[in-house]
């Protein structure tokens, strides 16, 4: 994992709370649910781009977390374990939809080839504009962007989860970044010297 991640999932839980859930205490699980409802829902919503599908993913992810909590050994933080379940639920839905067969035309794109020093338009975009631009990306591309930038997964981890290659993850990141840039800054101001004279 990249160490720069500040994922909303990063909530530490008391070990005693997890032990209570392992013993079947649904009241204890409700405490966990309340703390992680929004992070799980947000991850699903960003990946799937659909509120109803995100609701289903939230429900099923939490159900599986409860079912499988006996297998959680406590070597990793609980939030990372739960996040993996949430990501798998969203990916399962993506695979089932048409959006997962993403065009491979950018598979050969090298992310470094898109490097430039132009001001990043997202630095000046408000949340609504950024969300609207994100919503216009293909689901898989948006998922890669989110998993990489927000959740801090590496390309190798994303590739494994998506059952794709590392270069696929890199190309989707490059493509999504370029697309976001274009969506947020569609028409750069024309240079005065290029304007027609009266």
């Amino acid at each position, binding site marked *: 994992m990249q160490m720069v991640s500040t994922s909303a999932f990063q909530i530490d839980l008391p070990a005693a709370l997890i032990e209570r859930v392992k013993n079947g205490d649904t009241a204890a699980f409700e405490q966990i649910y309340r703390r992680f409802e929004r992070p799980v829902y947000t991850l699903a919503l960003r990946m799937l781009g659909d509120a109803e599908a995100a609701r289903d993913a939230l429900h099923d992810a939490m159900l599986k977390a409860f*079912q499988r909590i006996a297998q959680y050994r406590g070597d990793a933080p609980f939030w990372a374990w739960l996040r993996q379940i949430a990501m*798998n639920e969203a990916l399962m839905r993506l695979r089932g939809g048409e959006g997962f067969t993403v065009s491979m035309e950018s598979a050969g794109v090298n992310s470094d080839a898109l*490097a430039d020093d132009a001001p990043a338009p997202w630095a000046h975009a408000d949340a609504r504009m950024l969300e609207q631009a994100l919503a216009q990306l293909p689901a898989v591309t948006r998922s890669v962007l989110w998993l990489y930038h927000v959740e801090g997964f590496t390309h190798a981890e994303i590739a494994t989860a998506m059952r794709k290659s590392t270069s696929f993850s890199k190309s989707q990141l490059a493509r999504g970044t370029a697309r976001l840039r274009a969506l947020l800054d569609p028409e750069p101001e024309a240079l005065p010297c290029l304007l027609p004279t009266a």
Partner: protein
Amino acid sequence: MSSANRVTLGEALRALPLAAPPGDEWTPLRERLQPLHTRPSAWRRYALPAALAAALAGAFLILRTPPASAPATVAHVGASSSTNGTQAVQLHNAQNAANQPDRLAQLQQRSQALERWLRETGRDAAPLQGQDLAAAAEIENLIGLVDVELAAPRQTRAPALWQRRVGLLEDLAALRYSNYRLAAGGQLAASWQID
């Protein structure tokens, strides 16, 4: 893309507000939690019947594996997600604490061999269908959960985790093996050996 721009996009995305589901999602979830204590998990409902169906074919594959210093059945105990399985693994680990580095290395090698075999046979096998596909997806998700714990800096129970990983890969190999054999026209691929 320059690292400065990458950080900027990451910061912008991380600054977006968390979304909340439109309604009360806890109540319907709670209603489904209670009966779970008295019935088998989804993993067992879907995966075990399929895994058992593939077991006869898979047994051939697993039996061909060169014996490790510890009995092969121990890995299968580790594959079980049951509490009894976990206790058995813990007992085994306590008894073999002195040999833990060797045991860990053996498990890691076996995990790599199984992954290699799955990757190589996956190219020739027909796509899994129906219940087998669902079972394989479940097993892969469970392997992902084990990997989350293995990736953590603190691995106090690494041998137990690796044992569980190997067990899950063996389940996946059993599923894939029957499928691979079918794709090969029913001829036993005796040249395949996990080592």
